[in-house]
């Protein structure tokens, strides 16, 4: 982190010419969105933990194989899509349009794989009788409510991210968007990855069943 830092826009601070964070306004806007979204997810995770601790019974429907293995693969997909996003931003900053677009598409591939595996998992659980209002295991209904709310909101974020990346890749390829936009889209993508780093252990690993 730099300790000094105002941007040099050529005008005095009182004229509004100084950028105190020394980043483009769109990037600052996305950072502020990320902070508020982080609070949303944290509140949901804390609510989930609260009702779990307050419940007498809490179902553990995630067998090590296949559930935990598949969700580990999903985690791998997201982490890997983050590193391809880093490569995309690096290429975009160097002006290598073709390479950047290729890496963005690789990132979208990771995101799509995540969504497909996740949707398949939802399908399996729904077939087993899991609903937001109850489940076939006879335990507390709050498991379904919190599970669908948490993972559903996250899956929505991933889906929106894939669409955003597609728009960014096409716009960057056509020269409509600057490299900054790729970086800002990347910020959002990394954040979605970060959120999963908390959902995965709290929802899946804490409810794992071996054997």
């Amino acid at each position, binding site marked *: *982190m*730099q*300790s000094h*830092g105002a941007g040099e826009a050529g005008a005095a601070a009182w004229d509004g010419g100084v950028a*105190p*964070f*020394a*980043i483009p306004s769109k990037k*600052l806007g996305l*950072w*502020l969105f990320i*902070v508020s979204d*982080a*609070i949303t997810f*944290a*509140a949901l995770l*804390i609510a989930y*933990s*609260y*009702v779990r*601790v*307050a*419940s*007498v019974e809490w179902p553990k429907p995630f067998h*090590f194989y296949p559930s*935990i293995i598949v969700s*580990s693969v999903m*985690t*791998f997909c997201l*982490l*890997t899509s*983050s*590193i391809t*996003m*880093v*490569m995309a931003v*690096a290429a975009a900053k*160097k002006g290598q349009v073709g390479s950047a677009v290729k890496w963005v598409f690789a990132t979208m591939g990771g995101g799509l794989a995540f969504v497909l595996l996740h949707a398949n998992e939802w399908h399996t659980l729904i077939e087993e009788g899991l609903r937001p209002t109850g489940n076939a295991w006879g335990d507390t209904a709050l498991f379904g409510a919190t599970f669908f709310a948490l993972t559903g909101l996250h899956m929505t974020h991933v889906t929106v991210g894939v669409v955003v990346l597609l728009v960014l890749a096409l716009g960057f390829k056509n020269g409509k968007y600057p490299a900054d936009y790729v970086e800002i889209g*990347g*910020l959002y993508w*990394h*954040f979605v*990855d*970060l959120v999963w*780093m*908390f959902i*995965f*252990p*709290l929802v*899946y*690993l*804490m409810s*794992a069943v*071996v054997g």
Partner: protein
Amino acid sequence: MSANHAHEHAESNRLYLVVWGALLFMTVVEVFLAYIQLPTGPMLLILMGLSVVKAGLIVAYFMHLKFEVATLFWCMVPMWVLVMLLLFVFFPDSFRASDLRFP
């Protein structure tokens, strides 16, 4: 702690790959802990510790916050932590909620 925008590209790519490897390694450790079925207390402590480290790595390196002006960090992260602490204020109630339920 300085901005390395003119850093060697190959070297910075290697840094990102190392971070990626560390994230994957910590994930494998977490899954292993689930496999050996650690007791809930230590399990939760270790999992959350690793998750915070992973989140820190993602924010610092992948999201470049380490290389931004420090003001950005100080304007966002402490207030987020404060909000988290405030959300936890009522958490102890969950420990007695099941006793309060009408039989």
